[in-house]
């Protein structure tokens, strides 16, 4: 057993921290305020080989492992969860299914520009009436000539308004609930694709979230992932597993940010004549935060390590996601409480960590869904 990042990984961590602090940090306040994603970051991060970390070198990707990806996710989310959301989708849900199930032609067409940051990807599964229950989606893809006609509405779509392409889940056979789904790549320019509206959210303000419409949107059959009709939700299995581990790193990143901000606050703030860092109650809170962060980090990187060896089960991934997304609530809540009124000001990042951290319990399987998956994994 080996519980440390190796020297190469530590160097990598240092390098990405430096890049994010140089390129991302200066954008955060402005784009959080604008509630928009700074698209200029894409080519910059592409040039630094920090997009689609696990994409193999033959498609221009860095070809790194899950541990390396988690390192980048933790570091980026330490700076900004909203910006991190967009980058996570680019390297995860939008491109992963293309990598695993797309034709060579699709891989060359979409992955290479995605890796370079020339094209932005999105992923569309959730619908107004189908969230936790993905098999309940109503979007259909009806075969017509040499392609499919897609109809439906998708919501909560990260990168929805800024994407160049979107990987969409739709029923090719609505009579086969759960199994009759396929994934298609739709391009922004395809007739029938439109953005209904951008959505305002509690947090992740610098990520772009939208509701999308597919109105008789025609795509050639070559844009379907896989050769046969059906099995699209099963194709997502590995991507979802990977994404749940990513959420461990995302939660750890924002938890770390809240911890660091609190540490500096209590060392410089006096309350009733006493430095906060001297209060036993505050010291206990800090100890607890440190404890959670350690545990979150171990779980996330162990999960990534298992994933890299093909050993991670969905139960493993769900345990990581559930533990980390619940633990980070305690960290960001305590961190906000300690600062009292000061913590409520919009110019104080602590309230952003609270709003951003709150997201973790919802996407890619709510905490309740993670419980179901874990219980199922126990053979129950």
């Amino acid at each position, binding site marked *: 057993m080996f519980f440390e990042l190796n020297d190469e990984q530590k160097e990598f961590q240092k390098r990405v921290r430096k890049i994010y602090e140089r390129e991302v940090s200066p954008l955060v306040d402005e784009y959080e305020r604008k509630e928009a994603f700074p698209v200029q970051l894409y080519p910059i991060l592409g040039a630094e080989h920090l997009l689609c970390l696990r994409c193999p070198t033959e498609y221009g990707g860095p070809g790194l492992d899950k541990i390396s990806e988690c390192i980048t996710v933790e570091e980026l989310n330490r700076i900004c969860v909203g910006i991190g959301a967009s980058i996570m989708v680019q390297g995860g849900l939008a491109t992963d299914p293309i990598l695993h199930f797309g034709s060579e032609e699709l891989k060359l067409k979409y992955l290479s520009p995605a890796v370079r940051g020339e094209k932005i990807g999105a992923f569309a599964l*959730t619908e107004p*009436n*189908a*969230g*936790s*229950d993905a098999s*309940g989606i109503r979007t259909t893809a009806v075969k017509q000539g040499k392609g499919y006609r897609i109809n439906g509405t998708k*919501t*909560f779509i990260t990168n929805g308004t800024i994407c160049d392409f979107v990987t969409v889940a739709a029923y090719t056979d609505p009579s086969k609930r759960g199994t009759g789904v396929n994934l298609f790549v739709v391009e922004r320019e395809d007739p029938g694709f439109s953005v209904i509206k951008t*959505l*305002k*959210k*509690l*947090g992740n303000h610098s990520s772009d979230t939208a509701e999308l419409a597919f109105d008789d949107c025609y795509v050639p059959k070559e844009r379907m992932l896989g050769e046969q009709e059906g099995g699209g939700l099963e194709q997502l299995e590995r991507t979802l597993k990977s994404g749940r581990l990513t959420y461990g790193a995302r939660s750890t990143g924002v938890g770390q940010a809240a911890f660091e901000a609190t540490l500096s606050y209590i060392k410089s*703030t*006096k*309350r*009733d*004549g*006493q430095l906060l860092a*001297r*209060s*036993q*109650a*505050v010291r206990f809170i800090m100890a607890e935060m440190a404890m959670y962060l350690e545990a979150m980090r171990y779980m996330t990187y162990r999960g990534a390590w298992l994933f890299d060896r093909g050993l991670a089960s969905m139960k493993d991934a769900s345990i990581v996601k559930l533990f980390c997304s619940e633990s980070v*609530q305690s960290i960001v*809540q305590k961190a*906000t*409480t*300690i*600062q*009292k*009124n*000061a*913590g*409520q*000001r*919009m*110019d104080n990042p602590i*309230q952003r960590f*609270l*709003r951003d951290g*709150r*997201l973790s*319990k*919802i*996407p890619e399987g*709510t*905490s*309740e869904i993670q*419980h179901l998956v874990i219980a199922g994994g126990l053979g129950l």
Partner: protein
Amino acid sequence: MDFQLTDEQKDIQKAAKEFAQGEFDPDLALELDQAGKFPESIWKKAAQLGFVGIHYPEEIGGQGLSLFETLLIIEAFCTVDSGIGSALSTVDLGSEVILKFGSNEQKEQFLTPLTKGERRLGIAFAESEDSGDLTVISTTAERKVDGNYIIHGKKSYVINASLADFFVTLCKEPKEGWITLIVEREKEGIEVHPVDKMGLRMIPFGDLLFKKVSVPLGNRIGREGEGLTHVDHCYQARALKSVAQALGTAQGAFDRALQHAKQREQFGRKLSQFQAIRHKLADMAASIEVARCLAYKCAAGFGQGNGDRNFLAVTQLEVGRRLVAIVDEALQIFGGYGYMAEQAIEHYYRDAWAIGVELGTEEEQKDAIAEIILGSDLAKK
């Protein structure tokens, strides 16, 4: 012991709820929250119907009831909308000081317009966002030979900073000691610096700067040297109002989650048919009941003029820790929708945090309770 509301109290509660349901339009609430605007027209209507200052004596425009009835109104308002409800609950902050320590002329001059919806009041006590310790404040009011006070100083994180027409302001006079003065916001020498904040966005917060602000002797409340007593009295009433806001906000979040769980279907079933969701709702319902028992007992004591400080701290602690937990769980039941601003639960979450701060941190309340049950023998490391 009588654990029932009187018929009159039930009527007031019902009237407040009906008014709020009729007037607090959800789209308007969303718009006002996003824009950070005060609900002007709703406030005017609420005041005209007697919902502001119901506990003031009838001679000055009130209805001669107790603070308890005011708290019932706040709770009902916040149940329907945490943002609008809170904004309406805080238009007469500081009135308690004038009610208890002010002269009849002051009551008529400053409180009667509050009941008519013509004026709003605020308090300017603290000088740092962090400390509750007011003995370190540095705002001075020097009494000149002509009888006027000249105020210098800065107040921090003032509620209704750009909205209140008057502030009950804590100052130190070199000879008189602590005093409170009623200061008009429009006075020359006052600057307001707005603060943008996460929750309760319909209530404008800000820093107030006083530079050579002249206030007549007639605006001093009560006697010289009494200032800290005034503040203490005001803070108790403020804490009770925050408890009522918290209770309403928790109830409103619960009501919405319950409604959503009964309507939303996933996996071919209503959310309300899943045991995990049913237990969450049961837990929330139980928690609100506990909070309400504490809040009403506490409020009844203060309403009858025999408030118990220790019990107030206990109430603040228990209601505060329940508030965020309940609203957080309600948001969770909404899933992805809960995170979107289109759903009221999104601003309930932010508002709950702002109200929680007003209630004080757990550590502060535990310090207060410990001091009562153990004395002040705290080792300072």
